[in-house]
Structures are given as structure tokens and as C-alpha cells.
């Protein structure tokens, strides 16, 4: 009866998650960082949906919806911040944001 092993779903999720993480860490362009964050959140969604299906519960999907909400809120704030950044620095280079240290 079994179709897709949960194991594979989790591996897929991890794969997507690490790809997203790579993007967050490596990219200099803040816009890309935000996009990579979306990839990460999406990966978590995959894991939730998979787990939910495995347990035959709707909780997984509910969690996915909540994550979706978070993603939306985050993107909104993030992009607004990008606008400020663009205005202030005329650039989206993340490495400009290292004035505070020590």
C-alpha cells in the first residue's frame, strides 16, 4: 500500500532546506537572501506536509498554512526593509550592513 516513504520526503525537505540555507549564507544580494529564506521555509512546509500525510492528520497542513502566513509577513517586512536600504545605501549589498561590531 505504501507509496512514497516518509524518509524520502524528509530527505527532499532537508535538501531544499540546505539549498536555501546556502543561498542565505552565500549571497551578497539581499533580495536573493530573502528568496533563499522562502526556499527554506518552503522546505519546512514539505516536511510538515509529509509528516502530516504519514500520520494521516491535518495538523501538518495547518502548520503549513501557518508557515505560509509567516512567509507572507516576513516577505512584507523584508521587502520594506529593502526599500529603506535601497534608499539609504543605493545598493542591496548585504556587506554594507556591518557597521556594528566588536
Amino acid at each position, binding site marked *: 500500500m505504501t507509496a512514497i516513504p*516518509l524518509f524520502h520526503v*524528509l530527505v527532499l*525537505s*532537508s535538501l531544499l*532546506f540546505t539549498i*536555501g*540555507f546556502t543561498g*542565505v549564507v552565500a549571497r551578497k544580494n*539581499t533580495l536573493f*537572501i530573502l528568496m533563499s*529564506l522562502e526556499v*527554506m*521555509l518552503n*522546505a*519546512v512546509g514539505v*516536511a*510538515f506536509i*509529509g*509528516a*502530516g500525510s*504519514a*500520520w*494521516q*492528520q491535518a*495538523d*501538518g497542513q*495547518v*502548520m503549513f498554512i*501557518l*508557515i505560509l502566513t*509567516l512567509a507572507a*509577513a*516576513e516577505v512584507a*517586512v*523584508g521587502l520594506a*526593509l529593502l526599500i*529603506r*536600504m535601497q534608499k*539609504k*545605501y543605493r545598493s542591496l549589498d*548585504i556587506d554594507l*550592513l*556591518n*557597521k*556594528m*561590531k*566588536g
Partner: protein
Amino acid sequence: MMMVTAANTHASLSLDVIQTILPQLIVAFGIALALILVAWRRSQRTIVLFTAGVLTTALIASVNLLAIQPTVVTQLLKVDSNSAFAFSLVLVVALTSLHMSYQFLKNHIEVHDEYYLLLMLLVLGAGVLVTSHHFASLFLGFELLSISLVGLVGYHRESNYSVESGFKYLVLSASASSFMLLGIAFIYSVTGTMSFDANLPNDIYHQQNLRLFFELGILLFISGIAFKLSIAPFHFWTPDVYQGAPTPVTSLMATVSKIAMFVVLVKCVIAQRYMLHGNLQLLLIVLAIASMLIGNVLALKQSNLKRLIAYSSIAHMGYLLIVVIVISGESLAFTWQSVLFYLSAYVVANISLFLVVASLQTQCLTGDRVVKHYQEEPVLNDLQGLFWRTPSYGLLVILAILSLAGIPLTMGFIGKFYILSQATIAHAWWLIITLIVGSGISLAYYLPIIFKLFEVEPEGGNEVKKLERAVIEKVLVYSFIIIGLVFGVFPDVVSQFIVS
């Protein structure tokens, strides 16, 4: 195949149940009303007064709940006396911070409705967190807290650091929450439930490999919480964001989010005792030791006050983590007492410090008439001679610092006494030794602050900076002094509220 249907267990939202989350509800409705209020009249005073009213009402409601029996609200939330105490603490802090915020914002030309709304949202987030009983509510509270903080951190748009700190906080907290969510997803895929006090399937205990996977989930989950608590090695954001945020916001970050997250961590650990099994206990020990050492070491030689407080908070969370590590089934009440007392002490000390720092930032030279000189970065030298200039502020700083350093006469000492008691009972000698070493190092940066207060004030007539002192501020300062001393010498006054 286990089928746990959560749907059957959901409790109906009867009036009795709703009563238990009244404080949170008041805040929530307050937010909604505030939105309407903003539409009706945009005035700084009005919104401040309104916010204060909402928070005070919520505080009264919350204090009423202090003796409540544990009540589960729709599987997501669970209210008990501890959460009520924690939320009261949050509200008190928020009220103080509100005053600071008003002092900070009233000089701006714009009207800042968003600020107060965000502040209430933040409080709501904390309220959800302290009562949460389910990973979903935990996650939502966490995010509510984060997003409103992101809004607040960069609030002072004219500041040089606004974007930087806001963005840093956003990205880091988003990735932290992703990690946490991944952890929750892993936990969920093993256990099939997201409630805190679920019965765990037996496989976890019997099957070594599955347990590893499960522990991985918890590790990821804890990393998210540790991020919020700025526990090393997830502490990197702390100093930068503390520094960049406006001081009232920093004070919120240092207090509200710490209280909320720590309470939820303790709830989680108490509910799911498996967190203290072998590997995970080791994990927590590593985190605690790293925090205690790294925080204190980093705080040395720091001249920026806010960064210094940030680093010291890392260390304090490390101390507090000891309590979590040594939780034992027999003395849960004592554990709660320790945690809440320490948190209160920590919060009172921090908020006192920030109160002074905030008023130092807005202090003006006596020579100038009206020009408000806002000082972006409060540094150690600003404290020079403060004790001689305004003894009450000096005294407050001294008390706060001593409390943080854990010296008797202050609440911090009693808090440390609690922690040491816990650790001693559990024979956690290595943690105790680290704590002692950490405290030793911490004195090397706490004491110079006090010494600075006593240094002779700089010479020169109109160079002397005068503090602007509103009546409320005076009241706050004196009340914090009294709170610090009285609760430090007679800790039973506080403890009796925490007894569950």
C-alpha cells in the same frame, strides 16, 4: 500505525476558559481598538494613554490569575500560575518600556501609532508564548514576537543603524525560525503530535536510531529558542541588534522576549522530560557552559553600554539554563520558582539599567535651551560621575549592576542562590564551576561601571549634563530602587507570588 486524533480532544471555548486567557484577550482587543482609535484621532498622547490603559488592565487581569489552577485552552494554550506570573512581569516591563518609548518618541515630529501597536503586538506574542502548550502556538508566538520586534528594532529610521539592525534581526530570526520549524517538523514526523504533553510512542525509547533522529529534531528546535534567548553559540545577533535598536526597544528585547522564550522553554522541557535524556542534556550543558563563558568574555573591555548589556545577557541566559538542565520531577515548583525569580531579578536589573541609559541618551547640556540632543550610542563614559550628579540614578545603576553580578542585597543574588541550590541538589559541579568562573569574569566588567559612576565629574560649568527628569520617571526610578532593595533583602515577597 498509531492514529492520534487531536480533533476529539479539543476543548470548547467556554466562558470559564476564556477567563483564563483574559489578559491576552485584553491586549488583542486593545490592538483592534487601537486601530480604530488611530482612525479616529492621531495623537501621541492619546495612543500612549490608551496603550497604557490596555496594558494596565491586562496587568490587573493577569495578577488576578496568579493563583489559577492549570487550565488547558483548546490544546494550544495552557494557563497556569507560572505563565500568569510571567505575563504579569512582561506587562510590568512593557509599561516601563512604554514610558521610555514615550520619552524617546515625543520629540519626534511624526505620530508613531505603529510603534505602540507593534509594542502591543509584541506583548501579545509574549502572552501567547508564555501560555503556549503546543508547537503551533509556540511558533506563532515566536513569530509574532519576532516580526513585531523587527518592526521596532529599526524603528528609528533616522538612525544610522536602523536598517542594519532591522535586517540583521529579520534574516537571522527568520533563518532561526526555519531551523526551529524544521526541528518541529522532524519531531512531528516521529511523534505524530505537536502538543507538549503528548504521550510519546515507545519506539523512541527503544529504538536507538530513531531516537537520534528525534533528538536531531529537538536540537534544531532548541537552536531556534536558543537564538531568541541569545544563548551561545547562537548569540551573534545580540550585541548588534541591541546596539542598533532604540533603547526602549532594546529593553523590550532584553526582557520581554527573554521572559517569554525562557518560560516556554521550561514548559517544554518540563512537559517533555525526554529533553533531558543523555545527548540532549549534554547539548544543554554545552550551551550553558558556552554561554556563560563566551558572554562574559565578550563583555570585557566593552565601552558601549548596550553591547555590554547584550553580552551580559548571554551569560545570564547561560546561568539560567542551568536550572533547566537540572530539572527533576520531584521539585517542579522549586524549578519554576527559581526560573521566575531569576527572570524577575534579571528583568528588574535590566530595565533599571535601560531606564538610566535611555535618560542619559536624551540628556542635554545645560547650556542649550531646548535643543534635544539625542545621543545615538550610550557609552561607558556617559556614566562618569553620575552618582554625584544625580544620586538616585547612580544608586539605581549600582543596584542593577550588583544584581546582575549577583551580590547580596539585591535580587540577583537570591536568583543566583536559587540556581546554585538547584545545581547543588543535582550535583552539577561542572556547571557550578563554570558559573563561578563566569561570575568572576563578569565582575571585571560590572565593577568598572560602578567605578565610573563614582569618578569625579568632568570639570567645566556648562559642560555639565543635566538629566531631564519627568515625574513618572522619578517615580519609576525610586520604585525600582525600592523594588531592587526590598525584594533583594526580603525575597519571600516575590516568592509567595510564584508558589504554584
